[in-house]
Structures are given as structure tokens and as C-alpha cells.
């Protein structure tokens, strides 16, 4: 991939409209919010416009269409476009480096499109539209949301605007600005059910945790700015500029990038700033789907991916490998940790949340490895090395794509499950008062302790929600990396590259081992989730009464299932090359069929013995060991009279067999300290809370006290001191004229002796 030597400024008709991709949703934010305030409760607003949902939908569709047009334009051009329209000089200022004049500085806004942009632009706008559709089915059918959905849609479109803006921005600064905008929306949406203390706390936690990362990001940006005098991609990726910087401050650059990486850690919920993501599931499910699985968490990855040109630069050869290692290790550790915690989660969405965390960690590992390779191999000149680097980077990006699609789908599917379970519960227990006003609905929503998200309240739903179950199945398979499905293509690449790097640099055994173990763990917890939810007999009465879901919800699930399954086609088209290097384009090397064959060959019949074995170990772990254990523990056939769709039957049957044949009592593990620790998220949150309460709050209370006692106390004691001095002074005016005369005499004598003495 390459720097700006390839970038050209292209003026094309669709590029002119690129800002609209951002502006349309941004403006509809205000529109929806305003209309919602005004027409809240109005039947037309509520039923026809879906409280803004049907305003957001066309806007998102328009954004998608514009994005697609932009993408197609780009695909024709094959190279990075910079500043598609006149850059807006946002901030004009000057610095002074001691010379004879000040140097003017400009922080402007523009649009920059390259491969990474295009890929993420598609992911974002596509998923935004689907989730918007899903939301209409999900949000507008739940009475608790009545009369506040406009807030949801407004914040939703603002979020989309932020995401799209972040992807399109032409500088790290504007990346950061939109990044923060997303953070705000995420905060607002997590706190959508503001009246729940847990939601309020989760929202705060999310904002604050990412903010901590952002602080580092800002400092990193500032340092980067200082090195380059700009944050524009065109400037900072310029080979000449990088050479200049590399000459004397490669170390500083590594620090800057490292600090920026911490920002990414926060945003993408990696260890140790991961604590916010599970709590963020307090938000409505579409929010979890969109923000906390499909798009926003990808922002961190995007940021790291954006740093690739530094790692790939010749001038910085070998200078940034430590950072690459850190990136990979953070990914590796998080992957295992999150997967382990996911083992014991009972909450459907939390399993997915930890899964998200874990999969993002994979991508980080992949990026870290790719960056290590780019930084240490002489890939600009060596063709083989070039290929290795490109594929490694491409695999990570491809996993990003696959994961976004699959996880978006999984969350929507889980939302659909939760939605229906909740409705079933509602029907069952509150049949009588359903007609009451919303206030009551609202209240009894909280009064009962039924948890619609707990998998303990599900089971055997495969027959009742066929589309959902299918989508969930495909999505899980993709995440697990079952051969030929979705994530398989990218995950194998990541694992392989990790091991490749580990061969070069023994430090990398840590992440490499992690991702390999992680594969098995993924297999286990994803299967566990699916079986607990859809296989076996309904675990209680509610689960037995779950009905099918509505069309708004089904449509996106349906679409995404196919997208996930078609991953092989993308792989065949050379996604891994295209996504990472401008010199490739789709189908540039091979035809589709050839490509698929090549990929198959590459994956399953690797000529290198090491990678051949590695591939099968990974497949064995991810597709056999993990799911096998899960089947043994949680599998089972459906209840009598329930039938699943044909494509799910083998799975169900297999699981029932496994469960019957290999079931073992895992209560020893379940009750072990380790499992309890996992249930408590390894106590990390607790330590953080303790630190907040004891150290930060304690310290700030002390400081506040010092402020009023010491600083203001000084002022007050000056005041009271002068008051008592005043009392003393006035007490000398005794009231007796004799004393006054004495004073006059003393004054006289003092003057006398003073003059006598001096003269």
C-alpha cells in the first residue's frame, strides 16, 4: 500500500457529493430531533413515520447509494483520491520556530479515499442501513420505547454521520473529531434507557473509558502534528516527509503512534480498556449491533490500519517493531481473556460482546503482525516479502469486514430473539393490562425480574424462529472460522501470519499462541451460545411461547446471511490483496473461479509444511474441539413436535448425539475459583471501580477540602485576623481622656527623642 505518491486529485461528479454522505445524516439528526420534540405522540408521527425511523431510512439509503457511487468511482480509478473537494481551512493559525517570521498552519477538512476507506465506507453505510431497517422492527414494537424513539433515530443518524465522517476524513485530526462524535452518540445511545441506573452508569463508563484512550490519542496526534506540521494523510504518509522525520525522531514517532494506539485500544475495547463494552449492552439491541459490534469498535482498528504507511515506510525500517509487538500482544491477550469470560456468560448479548472483543483482538493481532512484517521485511524491493506483507495486512482487514458483517447479523439475530422472548413473556404475564398507558408498561417492565436476555430463559428456539436461528448459525460459524464460511478466510490468515512472525521474532509466540488457543475458545463459546439458545428443549414456559419475528427484523438478517456466506467470493476476488494495496484491484490477478481455487489451495493445501499443519490444527481446534465440547455440554434435540429447517437439522441431531454420548459433569469447573473469577470479569472492573472510588474520588475530595480549608482558609484567616487586630486596635481607645492625653504625650516624646537622637 502506499503512500501519497500514488494519490491523485480526481474531480469527478460523484466526488462532489461525497460530503453529503456525512452531511445528510447529520442534518437529519436535527430534523428528527426537532420533529420528534414537536410531534411526539402524534399518530402520524408514531405510526406512519415510525417516530423518525422512516426519515432516517431514506437518508441512510441515500448515504449508502452515494457511498456506492463513490466506491465504484474509486474502483475505476484504482488509486487513492485525496481532497476530493476544496479543503475547508477550518483553523488557521501560526507557530513560530524562532525564525524571522511565523509559519502559518492550517488544520483543514477534506475527504480522502483509498482502499481502506472504501472498504470501511461500504461496511459502515451498508450496516447502518440494515440496522436502521432492523431498528424499525425492533424499537417501534416495544412499548417502552414509545415516544422516545425519535431520540433513538436522531442519535442513530448522528452516529452514522460520525462513522462515515471518520472514514472519509482526510486527516487524523478529523478522524479524531468524528471519532469523538461517535463516542458522544454511543454515550447517548447506551444511556437510552436513562432511567435505569445501570444504563446511566454504563453510558458513563463507556464514555469515560474511551475518553481515557482518547486523551492518549490526542497527545499522540499532537506529537504527530509536531513531527510533520500537519495531520493530513497526504502529508504524513508522504515518503519524503517520513524520511525527514525518520532521520532524527523515529523514537518520538513510535511514541506518538503508540499513544494513538492507546486511543484505539479504548475505542475497540481491548485490554485493559475493555471494561466498557459488556456494560454497553445496556443500550437497545440495534445500538449494540451497530455501534458496539459492527462499526464504532472498528474505528480503533481503522486508526491502527491507517498507521500502516509508517510501518511500511522504508525510512523507518525496523524502527517500529516494538510497537507492532505491543499491538499484536494486546490483541492476543484480549482475544484469550475475552473468550474465556465469554465461556461463563449467560446473557446472550454479553456473550456476543465478549466475542466482539475477542474478534477485534484477532484483528489487532493481525494488524500487529502485518505491521511487524512491513516494518522488518524489505518489502518494497523483494517481491515475495511484498506478497507476505500485503496478504498479512489484507487478512486483518478482511477479518474486519467479515467480523463486522457477521457480528452485525449476530446482534440483530440476538436482538430478534430477545425481542420475541420479551414479547412472549409479556403476553404470558401481562395479558390483562396490555392496553394500559405506556407509563404502566414502562413500570412493569422493571418490576418483574424476568431477564429476556438470559440464555437460561431460552432453548429450542430453532423451530420457532427459523430465519433468526439460521442467521445466528451462519454468523457463529463465520466467527468460529468454520471452513469455507465467512471468517474462516481471514482468521486462518491471521493465525498463519502470527506464527510466521513468531518464527522471525520469538516475542511473537505470545500473540501467536493466544490466537491459536483463541480459535478453540471461540469455537466453544459461540457454539455454546447457539445450542443454549436454539437447541434442546425450551428451558421454561416463556421460551416455549416465543413466536416468529417481524419483517423489518427478518430482512436485514436475511441479507446479511448471504453476505456472510458469500465471503468466499470476495476472497476469490482477491480481497486480501485489494484491501491492502493500491496496486491490486478486484480480479486483477485471477478470474473469480481461479481466485477461489487459489484461495482453497492456499488454505487447505499449503505447500509449506509448517503452515499446512498449522491450518489443520487451527481448523481442528476451532471447528472440532470447541464446538464438540459445546455440543457435549449444551446440545440436544428439539422438543417433541418441533421441527427445524432442514439445514439446521444435522446440527441439532449431531448435538443431541454428542450430548447423549459425551455429556460430562462440568460443575467442578463451574464452581471453581477461576470460573467465578471469569464470571466476575476477572475482577478488573472491580479494581477499576475501587481505584475510582478510593484513589480518584478520595483524592479529589481531599483536594476540594484543601481548596476550601487551605487556600480559601488563608483568605478567611486574613479576614478574621484583621478583625481581631481591629478589636485590639480599638480596645486602645479606652474611653478615658487621660489615656488619650497619654497617647498625645507619648507621641510628643517619641518625636522629641527621635529628633533629639538624630539631630
Amino acid at each position, binding site marked *: 500500500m502506499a503512500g501519497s505518491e500514488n494519490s491523485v486529485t480526481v474531480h469527478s461528479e460523484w466526488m462532489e457529493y461525497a460530503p453529503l454522505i456525512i452531511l445528510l445524516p447529520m442534518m437529519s439528526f436535527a430534523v428528527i430531533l426537532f420533529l420528534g420534540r414537536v410531534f411526539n405522540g402524534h399518530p402520524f408521527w408514531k405510526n406512519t413515520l415510525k417516530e423518525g425511523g422512516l426519515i432516517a431510512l431514506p437518508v441512510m439509503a441515500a448515504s449508502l447509494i452515494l457511498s456506492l457511487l463513490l466506491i465504484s468511482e474509486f474502483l475505476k480509478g484504482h488509486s487513492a483520491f485525496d481532497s476530493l473537494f476544496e479543503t475547508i481551512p477550518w483553523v488557521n493559525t501560526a507557530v513560530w520556530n524562532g*525564525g524571522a517570521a*511565523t509559519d502559518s498552519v492550517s488544520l483543514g477538512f477534506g475527504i480522502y479515499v483509498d482502499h481502506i476507506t472504501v472498504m470501511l465506507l461500504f461496511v459502515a453505510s451498508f450496516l447502518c442501513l440494515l440496522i436502521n431497517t432492523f431498528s424499525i422492527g425492533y424499537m417501534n414494537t416495544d412499548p417502552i420505547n414509545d415516544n422516545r424513539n425519535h431520540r433513538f433515530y436522531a442519535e442513530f443518524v448522528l452516529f452514522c454521520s460520525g462513522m462515515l465522517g471518520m472514514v472519509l476524513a482526510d486527516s487524523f485530526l478529523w478522524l479524531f473529531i468524528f471519532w469523538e462524535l461517535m463516542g458522544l452518540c454511543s454515550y447517548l445511545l447506551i444511556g437510552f434507557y436513562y432511567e435505569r441506573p445501570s444504563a446511566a452508569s454504563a453510558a458513563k463508563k463507556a464514555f469515560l473509558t474511551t475518553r481515557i484512550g482518547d486523551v492518549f490519542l490526542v497527545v499522540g496526534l499532537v506529537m504527530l502534528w509536531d513531527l510533520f506540521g500537519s495531520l493530513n494523510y497526504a502529508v504524513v504518509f508522504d515518503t519524503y516527509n517520513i524520511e525527514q522525520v525518520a532521520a532524527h525522531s523515529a523514537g518520538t514517532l513510535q511514541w506518538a503512534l503508540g499513544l494513538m494506539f492507546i486511543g484505539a485500544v479504548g475505542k475497540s475495547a481491548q485490554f485493559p480498556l475493555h471494561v466498557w463494552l459488556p456494560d454497553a449492552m445496556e443500550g437497545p439491541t440495534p445500538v449494540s449491533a451497530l455501534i458496539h459490534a459492527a462499526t464504532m469498535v472498528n474505528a480503533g482498528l481503522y486508526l491502527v490500519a491507517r498507521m500502516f504507511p509508517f510501518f511500511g515506510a522504508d525510512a523507518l525500517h525496523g524502527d517500529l517493531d516494538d510497537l507492532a509487538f505491543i499491538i499484536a500482544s494486546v490483541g492476543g491477550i484480549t482475544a484469550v481473556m475475552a473468550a474465556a469470560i465469554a465461556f461463563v456468560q449467560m446473557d446472550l448479548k454479553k456473550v456476543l460482546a465478549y466475542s466482539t472483543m475477542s474478534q477485534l483482538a484477532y484483528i489487532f493481532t493481525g494488524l500487529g503482525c502485518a505491521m511487524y512484517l512491513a516494518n522488518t521485511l524489505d518489502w518494497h524491493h523483494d517481491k515475495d516479502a511484498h506478497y507476505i506483507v500485503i496478504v498479512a495486512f489484507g487478512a486483518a482487514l478482511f477479518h474486519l469486514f467479515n467480523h463486522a458483517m457477521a457480528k452485525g447479523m449476530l446482534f440483530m439475530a440476538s436482538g430478534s430473539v430477545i425481542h420475541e422472548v420479551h414479547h412472549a413473556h409479556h403476553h404470558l404475564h401481562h395479558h390483562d393490562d396490555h392496553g394500559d398507558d405506556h407509563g404502566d408498561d414502562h413500570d412493569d417492565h422493571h418490576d418483574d425480574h424476568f431477564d429476556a436476555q438470559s440464555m437460561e430463559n431460552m432453548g429450542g428456539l430453532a423451530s420457532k424462529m427459523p430465519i433468526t436461528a439460521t442467521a445466528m448459525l451462519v454468523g457463529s460459524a463465520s466467527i468460529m472460522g468454520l471452513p469455507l464460511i465467512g471468517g474462516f478466510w481471514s482468521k486462518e490468515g491471521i493465525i498463519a501470519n502470527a506464527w510466521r512472525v513468531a518464527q522471525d521474532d520469538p516475542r511473537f509466540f505470545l500473540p501467536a499462541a493466544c490466537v491459536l488457543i483463541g480459535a478453540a475458545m471461540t469455537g466453544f463459546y459461540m457454539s455454546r451460545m447457539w445450542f443454549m439458545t436454539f437447541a434442546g428443549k425450551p428451558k421454561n414456559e416463556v421460551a416455549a411461547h416465543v413466536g416468529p419475528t417481524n419483517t423489518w427484523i427478518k430482512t436485514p438478517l436475511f441479507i446479511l446471511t448471504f453476505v456472510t456466506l458469500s465471503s468466499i467470493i470476495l476472497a476469490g476476488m482477491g480481497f486480501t490483496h485489494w484491501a491492502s494495496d493500491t496496486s491490486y484491484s478486484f480480479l486483477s490477478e485471477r478470474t473469480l473461479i481461479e481466485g477461489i481455487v487459489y484461495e482453497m489451495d492456499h488454505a487447505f493445501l499449503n505447500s509449506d509444511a509448517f503452515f499446512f499443519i498449522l491450518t489443520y490444527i487451527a481448523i481442528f481446534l476451532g471447528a472440532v474441539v470447541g464446538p464438540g465440547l459445546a455440543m457435549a455440554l449444551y446440545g440436544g434435540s428439539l422438543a417433541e413436535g418441533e421441527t427445524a429447517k432442514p439445514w439446521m437439522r444435522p446440527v441439532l441431531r449431531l448435538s443431541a448425539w454428542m450430548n447423549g454420548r459425551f455429556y460430562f459433569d462440568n460443575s467442578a469447573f463451574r464452581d471453581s475459583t477461576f470460573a467465578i473469577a471469569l464470571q466476575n470479569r476477572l475482577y478488573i472492573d472491580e479494581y477499576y471501580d475501587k481505584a475510582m472510588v478510593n484513589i480518584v474520588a478520595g483524592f479529589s475530595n481531599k483536594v476540594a477540602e484543601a481548596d476550601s480549608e487551605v487556600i480559601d482558609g488563608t483568605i478567611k484567616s486574613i479576614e478574621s485576623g484583621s478583625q481581631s487586630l481591629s478589636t485590639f486596635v480599638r480596645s486602645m481607645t479606652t474611653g478615658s481622656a487621660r489615656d488619650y492625653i497619654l497617647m498625645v504625650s507619648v507621641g510628643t516624646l517619641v518625636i522629641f527623642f527621635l529628633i533629639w537622637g538624630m539631630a
Partner: protein
Amino acid sequence: MDDWISLPLVGFPLIASVVLLAFVSNANQATRDRLASPIRMVCLVFSSLLLVVTTGMFFQYFGNVSWEGISFNSYEFDHRYLWIEALGIHWAVGMDALSFPMVWLTTFLLPVTIIATWNEKNGATYFPIVLAMGGALIGVFVSLDLFMFYVFWELTLIPMFFLILMWGGKDRRYASQKFFIYTFTASVIMLLGLITLYFFQDTSNPMIHAGTMTGRTFDIQTITSHALVENSNGNWYLGANIQKVLFVMLMLGFLVKLPAVPFHTWLPDAHVQAPTGGSMLLAGVMLKMGAYGMFRLPLSLFPHALQYFQLTLMIIGMISLVWGAIVCLGQTNLKKMVAYSSVSHMGVIVIGIATMQPMGWAAALFMMFAHGVISPMLFAVCGAFKHHYHSMEIGAMRGMAKHSPWLATSMMFAWMASLGLPLLAGFVAELMVLIALWYMIAAEGWSVLWMVGPALVLAITAAYYLWSMQRTIFEGGDETQPPASLHGEPVPDITDSEKLAMIILAVFTILFGVMPWIALDMMNDWTVQIFEGLILPILGNFNGGA
């Protein structure tokens, strides 16, 4: 010519205020209540007219003035009347890109304040006092004569004192006196500095406006140009030690006004007790007088001393920034928290100045402006909160989003703006200060640890704002009850006039956040001018010529 225009800008509000107050002074309570509404209207119309005038000035409708490209120490709309000949005192007014944004801000906040506090009690006297406040503030910003500057500087205390004393909270008696005495103390010391500076003028220099009795002039422009000449000769104007002493004396007055830690404790008391309108003007413009004064006098006159005290200033700024933020975290009173956040934000200004970079200075100027738009909204929210819930305690009222969606929205917006969310006015300034700070650190080889403070504060600021929102806007749950202080009355949302004020403030916060260049360009231009005109020739080798 429209050059005289700043005369009515200052004079009319003051005169109108005195006339209105005299008009109601001997009326009985019933008549006053009857007069409150028309007087309020008069004040609103009057202040809106001022806004129209200043906006017209911005759009070059009056005088056809471009606010950019005004060279250092020259002024637009400048005008002089002889005031006290013997001492060389003039009614000397003028504006440059440093003062004009502040003047505009003042005229902008006046109508907004009136709208936001539409139903303030005793309106017949309240609104004229607000108007007087505006006149005095404009006077500070337009004056180009040290005497006049000081007169208006102190004159601002009087209306504010009465606003706090007459319309304030429970401890207003203490707070108003503390406010007055504290800032007065600092400014008399500043006055002594000004006078000493005055007498240090070289009488052999040609001084057009010199006093007949003293042979010296109070004219800022003349003094600045003399200092400029002297400084550019490579000498410290007035010699090293004297310059330092004068610098310290002047800065003391301005730092207390700003306020910087450890001279800040008057501010929380004043803010907590002040009525909403008072707080809005206090935070919005009055604090900026300190920063404005720094730029206008010590920084323009004593660049050497500035360089000498750069480290000290940086330390003061850092301490203000961090201390203010940490104290915020420990507050349970909403308004006090917001007041301390002002202290913290003013620390940003001091840091911006201490960077001695055009960018840092422009950032400080923009911070003054942005904080001037944001902080009134913060205080308007606090005021509405207090007004409706009769309490200022964080946590007294939860689930505001349900009871008072407008207030909740305004609060969240204001809080977010204040914590520096991008695309809102505060972000640009903070970012620029950070960049300038790092630039300076890197160029001069300062310790990287200087970045720790600002970085820490970015997180802390978010923490205290989020913490307070969690306990006010959010939560409540099923138990969402009106606060006990309401005694069972229904919970009202903010009134229409308050809504209007919030919307205006929010719109401008977004406007200056999305399009900062509207104001920033002229500020940047001014800083470049002062750097190229003053700082750079003197301290050319200052950064080691990196």
C-alpha cells in the same frame, strides 16, 4: 465616519441604565412591578440594538473595517476626547482584533442574559443593572487609555456587586463582599503598577497627549509604541528589574480576575450565590477581562518579562487547570462544580499564553471567546436547575430527562461543549493549546511531563461532567421522584424564554465549533501581528532558532 461609534456603545447602556433606575427609584413596590415588564422590553430592545451594531461592525457595515490585517498597536473606530488634560487622560477608544470579539461577545450576551432571566424578580431594577454591566464591560474592552480602562475595570464591580447582593442566593451577603473586596484588592495593586508605569515614561519622547501637569500620558497606544521602540532596540523596556516588578503587579490584578489558582476562591462563592444573569455575565465576559488585560498590557509592553516569567506562568496555568478540575471532581454542588470548571478553563488560557507561540495565544483568545459562549449556557442551566428544583445539589434531582427534557438536553449540550467535544466551540481552543504546548515543549526541550497535566484534565473534565450528568439527567428509574425540595409540587420544565436563550447559545456554540474561523481568523491575525511586530524582533533567538 463612524469612528465615534464606540462612544454610544459604552455610554448609552450606562446612561439608559441610570435613567431607568432613576425613573423607578422613588416608585413604590406596586408601580415597580407594573413597570418591570416595559423596562425589561426596553432593555432587551436596547441591548439587541447594541448587538445589531456590533454585528454590523463585524460584517463591515459600519466603517468598512476589516478586522484582519490590523497591525499591532493600531486600532479601528478609534477616537479621542480630552478628558482630564492635566494628567493626560483621554476618552480614548478603539478596537482591534483582540478587543472586538470581546465587545461582540458582550453585546451578544446581554440580550441572551435578559432573555434567559426573563422572569427575574424586581425586574424594574434588575434589567437596568444588567444593562449597566454591559456598558461597563464594553468600556473595559474599548478603552485605549489606562485611566479609562481602570475606571471601567472597577465600574464593572458595582453592578455585579448589586446583582449578587440583591438577587443572589442564601449566602449572597458574604459572597458579594468577598467578590468585591478580593478583586478590588488585586486591582488596586494593579493600579499602582499602572501609575508607576505611567511615570516611567520618558518625558523627552514626543507625546501628543501628554498631561499638562505631569508631562506624561495615559494613552495605551502611545505607551505601547514607546515600549515597542525601546524593546526592539534590544533593551528591556524600563530595565530588567523594573519591568519584572511592573509585570508582576499588572499580572496580579489580571490573574485574580481571571482567576488563577491560588487567587480563585472568590469565584466559586460569587458564582454559587450570584443570580443566573450575574453568573452568565460573570463567567461569560467578566473573567475574560483578566485575560484581555494580560494581552493588552503586560504582554504587549513587557515581552522580556513574559519570557522571564514564562515558567512561572506555565506553572500557574497548569496548577489552575489541574487543581480546578480535581476540585470539580470533589464537588457536590452543581454550580460550584461549574464555577471550578471555569477556573480550570481559565488555566488553559494561561497555558496558552505561557507557550509563547502565536498558536497558543490565538488559542487563548479563542478560548476566551468560546468559553464566553459556553459558560453562560452552563450557568443558565444551573440557574434553571436551581429555579425549578430549589436545590443545587447534584443528585437532588434525578431522571431529569423524563421530567424536564428541555433542561436535560440543554444541560447535556452545555456540559458536552464544556468538556471539549469536537465541533463545539471549546474543542478548537483546547486542541490548539495542546498543539502549541507540545510544539513549545519540543522546540525548547522542556520535559514531556508538562503534557501530563492537560492530558489528565481532559479525562478528569469528562469524569466530573459525566458523573454529574449521571446523577441528574439519568437515573431515577421507577422511583423517579420530584426532588424533596419541591415539596410535592409538579416538576416543571424550563420556560419558553429560557428555552430560547438555550437555543441561541447552543446555536452559537455549534456555529463557532464548526466554523471557528469566523472569530479565529481575526484572532490569529492579531497574534501573528503581535508576534511579528513585537515578540519576534525582540526575542528572535528565543527558541534557539530551531
